[in-house]
């Protein structure tokens, strides 16, 4: 859907030293894979966490550590944090639709326990995608030339953190060529960021 519109021309530059599989702009259909979707929803009623922890299947509750019940379901494989205010965070889904479905399943679990549960304000908060460029990347050169957007402290974290100036998307670039794009609330934000970073990374290849 949106993926197709984002990618305009998919011309391949023969003159580029890169392999044909990595032109300066991603070819049609070359998209990062979504790995995680985080969403929130308001169940619209206060919840008794202790009762939930006692009666819900697969529930974890350690109030000393976190004031929320963690419930896991198998399909979609997700974990939900449920707070006493009735707000719920659903993590681990692989797509937006799955995240919504999972959130509904979690809400259903709570509903079955007898709470007057609604499904208010479902919102995708974060989408994380990953992609493998398969060529090594010179992070130091990248950090030096894009110092305005890059944070690279190898002693702290082996990946370079690239923040796009026009959006709040964050890209983690690793020297192996793998990247992670996070912070998007919509799928096309991911794709846009990917399209922006693609040529940049191409120019900092670390192999011939």
């Amino acid at each position: 859907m949106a993926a197709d519109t984002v990618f305009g021309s998919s011309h391949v530059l023969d003159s580029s030293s890169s392999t044909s599989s990595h032109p300066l702009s991603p070819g049609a259909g070359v998209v990062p894979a979504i790995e995680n979707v985080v969403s929130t929803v308001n169940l619209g009623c206060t919840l008794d966490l202790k009762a939930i922890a006692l009666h819900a299947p697969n529930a974890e509750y350690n109030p000393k550590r976190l004031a929320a019940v963690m419930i896991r379901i198998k399909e979609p494989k997700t974990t939900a944090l449920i707070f006493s205010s009735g707000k719920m965070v659903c993590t681990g889904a692989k797509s937006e639709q799955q995240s919504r479905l999972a959130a509904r399943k979690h809400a259903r679990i709570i509903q079955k326990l007898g709470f007057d549960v609604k499904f208010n304000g479902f919102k995708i908060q974060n989408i994380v995608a990953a992609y493998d460029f398969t060529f090594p990347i010179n992070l130091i050169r990248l950090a030096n030339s894009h110092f305005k957007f890059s944070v690279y402290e190898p002693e702290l974290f082996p990946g370079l953190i690239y923040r796009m100036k026009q959006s709040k998307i964050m890209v983690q670039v690793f020297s192996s060529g793998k990247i992670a794009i996070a912070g998007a609330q919509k799928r096309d934000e991911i794709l846009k960021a990917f399209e922006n970073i693609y040529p940049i990374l191409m120019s900092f290849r670390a192999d011939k």
Partner: protein
Amino acid sequence: MASSTTSTVYIHVIEDVISKVRDEFINNGGPGETVLNELQGIWEMKMMQAGVISGLTERSSGQKQPTLGGPITPVHDLNVPYEGNEEYETPTADMLFPPTPLQTPVPTPLAGAADGSMYNIPTGSSDYPTPVNDSGGNTDVKGGRPSPYMQSPSPWSNQRTPLSVDVNVAYVEGRDEVDRGTSHQPLTQDFFMMSSGKRKREDFAKQYPNGGYNIPQQDGAGDSTSEVAKAEGSNGSYFLGRCDSATTAKSKILAHLARSSSKIPQLDGPIPDPYDDMLSTPNIYNYQGVVNEDYNVVNTPAPNDLQAATPAPVAQNDIGHDDDDEPLNEDDDDDDLDDVDQGEELNTQHLVLAQFDKVTRTKSRWKCTLKDGIMHISNKDILFNKAMGDFNF
């Protein structure tokens, strides 16, 4: 005969308990020996009905004949073993009366547990006296330790007999000082609690009006790997002081257990802080009302919140979102969730009821070390001292 081992253990437990409370019953205006004998008779009869005791010599004359009915009365949930009739191992002298306490950790895969090697109970396990074991003398009692507690739930589920309350309460005087200091020792007590699945939850909850501190444990792990007990530690010892004097009979037994076990504190995992840790999943079942008043908040939504919320969703709906907020009519789908409940069948249900030492998780791989547990697998009752298992969720 393999089954005799479990049966022996249970019989020993019954005898031990009865003999220990005999004094209480007879002296000081207790209920009296007749009542005691009747108690014993009823207990044995129920065990026989459940099929876990065999070859019991008629102890109390004039009692109802024990009927070796087919397994199960609907009353008996998980907690009451259905048939202990087949053991996998022929009990050797070592098994029955092991000289050394507690060793032999039994690696037991919780899912699809193999029969062999599980039965360590007789091997000097610690049971009530984890500590005492050093003398190794309590072998008989030890395996049985679970059973008195196991037994009581069934009467609970039916009717509330005075006995049932007592067992849970346990621990009396003398226990206080010790326990207060050591805080929550997950002795005995609660692990018999409960019913698989949701069936008896409400029942049990109602049975413990007293401050809710004997809240039955609901594992809720209804998956295929449901054998893994999310056995929660019990803070039974904590409540010693609260016993009514009327319940001293049972409490004496438990006091004995408690005292002996108090020598070496048994802890499930880290020593919890008195307040917060009471609420965490391992300890939540012994939750005291005092601590967590917050969590007893009524579920009714605050009206203000609702009204504030509705305008927003309505606006969104106007934009054209498909059944966004509100309609959570998910009676459609969620087959996965529903199947969990349907998996309950009295006879073939597999379950492990134990206290946990450690439960850890890495991504979707869970590892559990359990202790002092009873497994009911393939209609067999298996007792163990230690069990370790992992599963994937």
